[in-house]
């Protein structure tokens, strides 16, 4: 039955991203600064 109704049973799998990806995002967030000047916004990454 499974084969009839769902050709890709894998599609319903519950997955989570790796801790490294979350760590990267947190580091990216900490390093990103947005500066506004005369109506313009400038992004800077300070590691």
């Amino acid at each position, binding site marked *: 039955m499974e084969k009839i109704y769902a050709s890709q049973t894998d599609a319903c799998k519950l997955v989570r991203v790796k801790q490294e990806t979350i760590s990267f*995002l947190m580091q990216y967030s*900490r390093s990103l600064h947005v500066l506004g000047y005369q109506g313009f916004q400038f992004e800077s990454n300070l590691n």
Partner: protein
Amino acid sequence: MELQIDDSALVRDYISGDERSLEILINRHNQRITSFIYSKVLDRDITEDIFQDTFIKVIKTLKKGNYSEEGKFLPWVMRIAHNLIIDHFRKNKRMPKFEGGEDFNIFSVIGDDRPNIEKQLIKDQIDSDLGLLIDELPDDQREVLIMRIYKDMSFKEISECTGVSINTALGRMRYALINLRKIIQKNKIVLTN
């Protein structure tokens, strides 16, 4: 009972500079967003990439102050992920990627037919050895063989160049090859690539 802070409060805190709020948001919605992406792309690595790109957009939008509180946080993030999934498939359509499976390897169909460095070294060695063997041949035979093999001249051109008939040139070439084989057998030389 653990008190759960609203997404909207966490977003406000993050915009105010509390980085920890973002971590809570990511961990809270990690499974839902990742499973959603995975259900579309069915590849763990691509899922990680799209998840990462999604939150990079989220971070930039929040830090730039462009996030409006009208919608809820999760549906907004899901919409970003959805758009990035569409971008991914569009990109793949423009540049189709081919990957071999367990039973098929793309390199069995396409390949570089040039010899590798080891084979090239062996070939150079054989050419060098062959040159020494050719030097052992009588002058008239060596002359015809060099003209034919190395200079790629026709027997007509060889006959004109050496002043002998075509048949004589052919005969000298034949004897040159016979004598080469004899030298090789006599000295038990192995010339293989």
